[in-house]
C-alpha cells in the first residue's frame, strides 16, 4: 500500500504522506486554513477552534464493504455531522475537506472569532503586535464585523503584568492558545509557564523564582499570535511596518543563530530569530535577543585616540595610522619582526581575521599571532578539520538510531540553542543522549544516560570508551581499515585504559562505561560534543577523534565531532590560522612557529603589540604587567576597555550590526550578516583598519569590502573555496520564505540563508588515510584535599557587551560560591555566609549560595564576573582546580 493519500480540499486534489494533518495538506495547495494555537514546531492541541472545517469521507456500503456509488457512478461522500479541527485531524484516502466552500464552516470560524474577541481589547493602534498580528489579520479575513456580546461582561485582567524581568503579559489580549506554555514545555523543556483557572477566568501564570526564569523566554513573544506577551525591551519601541529588517547573525556564542535586526532611524529596535532550520530553526536565546544594546551605547569609541603623556587624546585616522606605521616600523628594524605580535579576539569576522594574519605574516613577517586569550584559551580544537560533523548534519532532525555523546559542555549555558536541539533530539525524537560531565547540568533531566566523572578525568573517560569499543569488538572494521591507519598501535596503547582502571580514575562503574561505549558504537549515527569543562587537553581531543573514526561515526551527515567553542567566530579564528603555528586552512607554518598569546603577554615577550577585540588586562594581573612594559600597544575596540586604557593608540571599530561580514559556527557553517545601522562617529570595520595599518607598512592592498576580502579567501584557503558572498547570501527555498507567519513563518520579510559548511578530511574519499592518534593523558593530579572549584561560563556573565543591556542586568550573577547542601553543612555555612576560598596561597572571600543542582564535592564560582574572583584561583585559562574552603 502506498504511503501517500489523496484528498480533496475545496475541490482541489492533493497527495500527501499518510499521517499529515489537514492544515498541512491545505498549506501545500496554498489554502491557508486560519489557526492560532497550531504551530508546526509543537504538538497540535486543537484548543483555539479557529481551524474548523467540514470533513467528509467516502461512504462504505456495510453489506458489501465496497464504496457506495451514486447514480452517476461517483463515490458518495458522507460528511461528519460536526465541524472538525483541521490542525488535529489527519488526512485519509478520498477525504473531502471544505474550508471556504462550506457555508457552515465559514460561519463556524466567524463564530469562533466572535468568541475570541468578546474580551479582547480594541487597542490595536497602540499594541506592539499591530501590523504583524495573526488575530488582527484573521479577523479582517474571517471575522464578524461587530460583536453581540455585552460590554458589561468583558473579562478584566491586569494590563501590564510582569511575568518575569523580561516578559510583560497583557492578559486581556490573550486568547489562551497556550503556544507560550507549550513552547516552554515542549521546546525549551523549562515548564515555567502554565494556565491557571479555566473558562473565562483562565490566565497565564509563572510561579518560578525569579519569575519566568528561562533562557528562552523571548521566543514566547514571537509565537504569541496576539499582543499578550511582549518583551520589556521592545514594548512600544516601534511599529512593525516602520522597521527595516536586516539579516544578521548573533555574536554571543558559537551556535551562529540567524537573527534579524529590526532597525528604525539608525537604531536597533529589536532582534528576532531568522529562520534557519539547520542552525536555530525559529528560536534565539534571550542573550542574543536582548544583548544588542552595546551597539548604540553612548560609551562607544567614536574616534582614534593617541596617548600624549597620561592622556589619550582624539586624533584623525591619518595621524593614528601613520604613528602605528612609524612605531611598528621602528621596532621591526631595531629588534626584528618577531618583536611584534598581534592578538585578535574570536568575535571578529573571517574577513577581519584573514587580513589580520596576512598583515602579520606577509607584511610584518612574523607568526606571533593568536586568538587564544580568555575563554578562547580554555578550549582548543583541531578535530573539526578531520572529523567535524559531516556536511548536512542537522541536529534538529536526528532521532532514533542516533547517539549523541556530550562531554563537559553545559549546553544550556554555553550554547543555548544547541541545548534545545540536543534535548529535542532526545525527548521528542528518541535519540540516545549520553551526558557526561563533572557536575549536574540542565541537560541531565532530558537524557537517558548521565555519566558523572571526576573533574580532570575526561580524557581518561574518552580513552576508556574507546578501549571498551575495541574490547567489545565494536570497531567499524571495514571503514576503519580503509580510511584510517595505526589501529594496531592504538589498540596497544589502549591496553592501559581497561574499564577497571578508567572506572577508578573517573569514578564511574565499568558497566556504565561499557554500556555507553556500546550505545555510541552501535548507533546508526554518532555525534560527539565536547566543551569547556572537559578541559583543554590534547589527549582528550585525540581520543575523541579516534573514537569517532574507530566507530565509523565520521565523514557523513549526522556523524562526527562538535567542539562547543566559546565565541561567535572561534571556529573561524582557527580556520583563518590565528595561531602561532598554523596558517589558514589548518596548514602548519612553514618556518618557525610564533609566540602564543600567553607568551606575548609575558614580560619581555614582544615589544609592540596589536590587540583587536580582546581585553587581556582584565583576565590577569600578570598580563596587565606585561602590557605595561610594552614599547608600543595598539588596541582596536568598541569600548575603552582596561586594555585600551593602557594603549598608545586606540582605534574605534565597528560593531557587527554596523558592517557586513561572515562567521563560521561550531558546525563549520560559514554564514554572512549584513549592515543594519550606521556606526558611531568615525569607527571603521576591523578588516579596513588592518588594511590601513598594512598600507602604512608598505602594503598596496586594495580591499574595498568584506565581500572582496572573502573573494581572496576563496582563492587562497581551499576549505573556503566557493564561499564568496554571492553563494553565502543566496536565498534558499522560496516555499519556506513565503510561508505565512500565522503558522511558523516569520512576521517580517527578509532574506533567509542557509550558509555553507566546509567538508572535513573524513568526508573526502580521495584523502589519505587518517592516522589514529593517541596522546597519553597527563597524570591525574595527586589527590589533594578539598573541593573541586569549577569556574564555568554562565550565559549571563560580566562581559563588556552584555553590560550595556540593562534589561538583562538583573540576571548577571554577583560572584558567589555555589555549594551543595551537604558540603555547606560540613563547612557549617548557609546561604549568605561568607567563605574564604584558597589555593596555593591565593585566597578570595565570597558569599555562599546553596544550590540544589550542584553535586557534592563540587563548588561553582562562575568566571567572568565582577572582580573576576574565579580566575584568580583557576587562572585566566583554567576551568577548575582543587581548593580549600573555610568559613570566614
Amino acid at each position: 500500500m502506498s504511503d501517500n493519500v489523496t484528498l480533496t480540499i475545496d475541490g482541489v486534489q492533493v497527495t500527501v504522506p499518510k499521517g499529515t494533518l489537514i492544515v498541512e495538506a491545505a498549506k501545500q495547495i496554498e489554502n491557508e486554513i486560519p489557526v492560532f494555537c497550531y504551530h508546526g514546531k509543537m504538538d497540535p492541541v486543537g484548543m483555539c477552534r479557529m481551524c474548523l472545517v467540514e470533513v467528509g469521507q467516502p461512504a462504505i456500503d456495510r453489506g458489501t464493504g465496497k464504496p457506495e456509488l451514486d447514480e452517476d457512478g461517483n463515490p458518495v461522500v458522507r460528511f461528519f455531522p460536526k465541524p472538525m479541527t483541521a490542525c488535529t485531524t489527519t488526512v485519509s484516502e478520498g477525504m473531502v475537506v471544505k474550508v471556504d466552500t462550506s457555508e457552515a464552516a465559514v460561519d463556524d470560524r466567524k463564530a469562533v472569532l466572535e468568541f475570541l474577541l468578546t474580551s479582547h481589547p480594541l487597542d490595536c493602534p497602540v499594541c506592539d503586535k499591530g501590523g504583524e498580528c495573526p488575530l488582527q489579520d484573521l479577523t479582517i479575513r474571517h471575522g464578524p464585523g461587530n460583536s453581540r456580546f455585552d460590554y458589561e461582561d468583558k473579562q478584566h485582567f491586569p494590563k501590564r503584568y510582569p511575568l518575569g524581568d523580561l516578559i510583560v503579559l497583557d492578559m486581556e489580549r490573550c486568547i489562551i492558545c497556550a503556544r507560550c506554555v507549550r513552547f516552554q514545555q515542549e521546546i525549551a523543556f523549562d515548564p515555567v509557564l502554565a494556565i491557571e483557572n479555566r473558562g473565562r477566568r483562565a490566565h497565564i501564570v509563572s510561579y518560578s523564582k525569579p519569575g519566568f526564569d528561562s533562557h528562552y523566554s523571548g521566543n514566547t513573544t514571537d509565537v504569541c499570535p496576539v499582543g499578550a506577551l511582549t518583551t520589556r525591551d521592545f514594548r512600544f519601541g516601534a511599529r512593525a511596518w516602520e522597521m527595516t529588517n536586516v539579516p544578521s547573525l548573533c555574536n554571543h556564542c558559537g551556535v551562529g543563530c540567524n537573527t534579524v535586526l529590526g532597525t528604525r532611524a539608525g537604531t536597533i529596535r529589536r532582534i528576532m530569530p531568522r529562520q534557519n532550520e539547520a542552525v536555530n530553526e525559529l528560536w534565539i536565546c534571550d542573550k542574543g535577543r536582548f544583548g544588542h544594546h552595546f551597539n548604540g551605547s553612548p560609551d562607544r569609541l567614536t574616534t582614534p585616540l593617541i596617548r600624549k603623556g597620561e592622556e589619550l587624546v582624539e586624533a584623525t585616522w591619518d595621524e593614528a595610522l601613520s604613528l602605528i606605521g612609524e612605531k611598528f616600523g621602528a621596532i621591526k628594524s631595531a629588534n626584528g619582526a618577531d618583536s611584534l605580535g598581534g592578538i585578535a579576539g574570536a568575535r571578529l569576522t573571517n574577513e577581519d581575521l584573514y587580513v589580520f594574519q596576512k598583515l602579520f605574516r606577509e607584511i610584518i613577517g612574523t607568526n606571533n599571532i593568536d586568538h587564544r586569550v580568555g575563554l578562547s584559551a580554555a578550549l582548543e580544537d583541531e578535530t573539526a578539520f578531520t572529523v567535524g560533523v559531516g556536511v548536512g548534519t542537522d541536529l534538529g532532525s536526528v532521532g532514533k538510531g542516533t547517539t549523541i555523546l556530550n562531554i563537559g559542555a553545559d549546553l544550556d549555558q554555553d550554547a543555548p540553542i544547541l541545548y534545545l536541539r540536543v534535548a529535542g533530539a532526545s525527548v521528542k525524537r528518541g535519540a540516545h543522549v549520553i551526558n557526561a560531565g563533572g557536575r549536574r547540568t540542565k541537560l541531565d533531566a532530558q537524557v537517558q544516560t548521565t555519566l558523572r566523572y571526576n573533574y580532570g578525568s575526561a580524557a581518561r573517560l574518552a580513552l576508556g570508551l574507546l578501549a571498551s569499543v575495541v574490547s567489545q569488538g565494536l570497531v567499524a572494521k571495514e571503514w576503519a581499515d580503509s580510511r584510517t591507519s595505526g589501529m594496531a598501535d592504538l589498540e596497544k596503547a589502549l591496553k592501559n585504559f581497561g574499564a577497571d582502571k578508567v572506572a577508578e580514575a573517573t569514578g564511574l562503574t565499568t558497566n556504565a562505561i561499557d554500556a555507553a561505549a556500546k550505545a555510541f558504537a552501535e548507533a546508526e549515527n554518532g555525534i560527539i560534543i565536547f566543551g569547556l569543562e572537559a578541559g583543554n587537553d590534547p589527549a582528550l581531543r585525540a581520543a575523541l577523534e579516534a573514537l569517532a573514526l574507530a566507530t565509523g561515526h565520521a565523514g557523513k551527515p549526522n556523524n562526527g565531532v562538535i567542539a562547543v567553542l566559546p565565541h561567535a567566530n572561534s571556529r573561524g579564528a582557527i580556520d583563518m590560522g590565528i595561531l602561532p603555528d598554523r596558517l589558514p586552512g589548518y596548514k602548519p607554518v612553514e618556518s618557525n612557529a610564533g609566540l602564543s598569546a600567553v607568551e606575548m603577554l609575558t614580560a619581555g615577550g614582544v615589544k609592540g603589540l596589536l590587540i583587536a577585540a580582546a581585553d587581556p588586562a582584565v583576565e590577569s594581573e600578570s598580563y596587565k604587567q606585561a602590557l605595561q612594559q610594552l614599547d608600543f600597544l595598539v588596541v582596536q575596540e568598541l569600548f575603552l576597555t582596561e586594555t585600551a586604557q593602557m594603549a598608545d593608540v586606540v582605534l574605534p571599530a565597528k560593531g557587527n550590526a554596523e558592517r557586513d561580514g561572515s562567521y563560521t559556527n561550531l558546525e563549520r557553517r560559514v554564514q554572512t550578516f549584513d549592515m543594519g545601522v550606521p556606526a558611531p562617529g568615525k569607527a571603521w570595520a576591523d578588516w579596513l583598519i588592518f588594511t590601513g595599518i598594512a598600507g602604512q607598512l608598505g602594503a598596496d592592498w586594495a580591499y574595498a569590502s568584506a565581500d572582496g576580502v572573502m573573494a581572496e579567501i576563496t582563492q587562497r584557503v581551499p576549505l573556503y573555496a566557493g564561499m564568496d558572498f554571492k553563494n553565502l547570501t543566496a536565498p534558499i527555498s522560496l516555499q519556506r520564505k513565503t510561508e505565512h507567519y500565522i503558522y511558523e513563518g516569520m512576521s517580517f520579510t527578509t532574506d533567509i540563508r542557509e550558509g555553507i559548511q566546509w567538508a572535513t578530511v573524513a568526508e573526502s574519499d580521495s584523502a589519505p588515510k587518517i592516522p589514529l592518534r593517541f596522546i597519553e593523558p597527563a597524570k591525574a593530579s595527586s589527590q589533594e584535599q578539598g573541593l573541586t572549584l569549577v569556574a564555568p561560563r554562565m550565559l549571563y556573565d560580566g562581559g563588556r557587551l552584555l553590560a550595556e543591556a540593562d534589561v538583562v542586568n538583573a540576571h548577571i550573577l554577583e560572584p558567589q560560591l555555589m555549594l551543595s547542601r551537604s558540603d555547606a553543612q560540613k563547612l557549617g555555612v548557609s546561604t549568605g555566609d561568607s567563605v574564604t576560598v584558597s589555593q596555593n596561597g591565593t585566597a578570595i572571600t565570597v558569599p555562599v549560595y546553596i544550590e540544589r543542582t550542584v553535586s557534592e564535592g563540587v563548588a561553582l564560582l562562575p568566571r567572568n564576573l565582577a572582580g573576576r574572583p574565579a580566575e584568580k584561583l583557576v587562572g585566566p585559562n583554567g576551568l577548575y582546580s582543587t581548593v580549600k574552603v573555610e568559613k570566614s
Partner: protein
Amino acid sequence: MGWTEKEQQDLEKILKKYPADRKLSAVLPALYLAQREKNWLDDDDIEAVAEALGIETTHVHSIIGFYTLFRKEPVGKYMMEVCTDLPCALRGAEDFFKRLCERMGLGPKGGTTEDNLFTVEEVVCIAACDKAPCMQINLEFFESLTDEQIDEVVAGLRAQASNNGA
C-alpha cells in the same frame, strides 16, 4: 509547610501507587493530602508538593487552578457549596443562595464568615438537580432545602465546632 510524620507516610503510600518516573500522576492525591489539614493550600504546601513530585511549582499551580475543590485562599472549617446552575436555578437555587448569604451575614457572592467557621460558595452541579436547592457542606449533602433547615444545620455545626473547642 513540611509534611507531618503521618502525612509523610501517606505521601509515600500514594507515591508507591505510581511508577517512579511518573510521579506527576500522583499530583491530585498529593494535593488532597496537603490540603487535608486546613482545607486550603498556601505557597509552602504547593512548593512541598512540587518538590515531592519533582515538577515545576508553576505546573502544580495550574492544576490547582483547574479544579475548584483545591483552594489557594483561606476558607472556613465548613464549606457550604450551593449549586446555582440552570436546573437548580429553575427550582429557586439562585434566590436561595442570596438568602443564605444574607443569613450568614455575607455579601451577595458569598465568602467566609468572620469567625472563619463557614465559607459560602456557588458551585456548578453537585448532581442533585431534582432536589434543588441543594448544598454540600464538606462531605455531607443537603437537599430540597428551606431557610429554616439552614438555620438548624448551621446551629448544629456551630455547636459541634464549639464542643470540639474550635
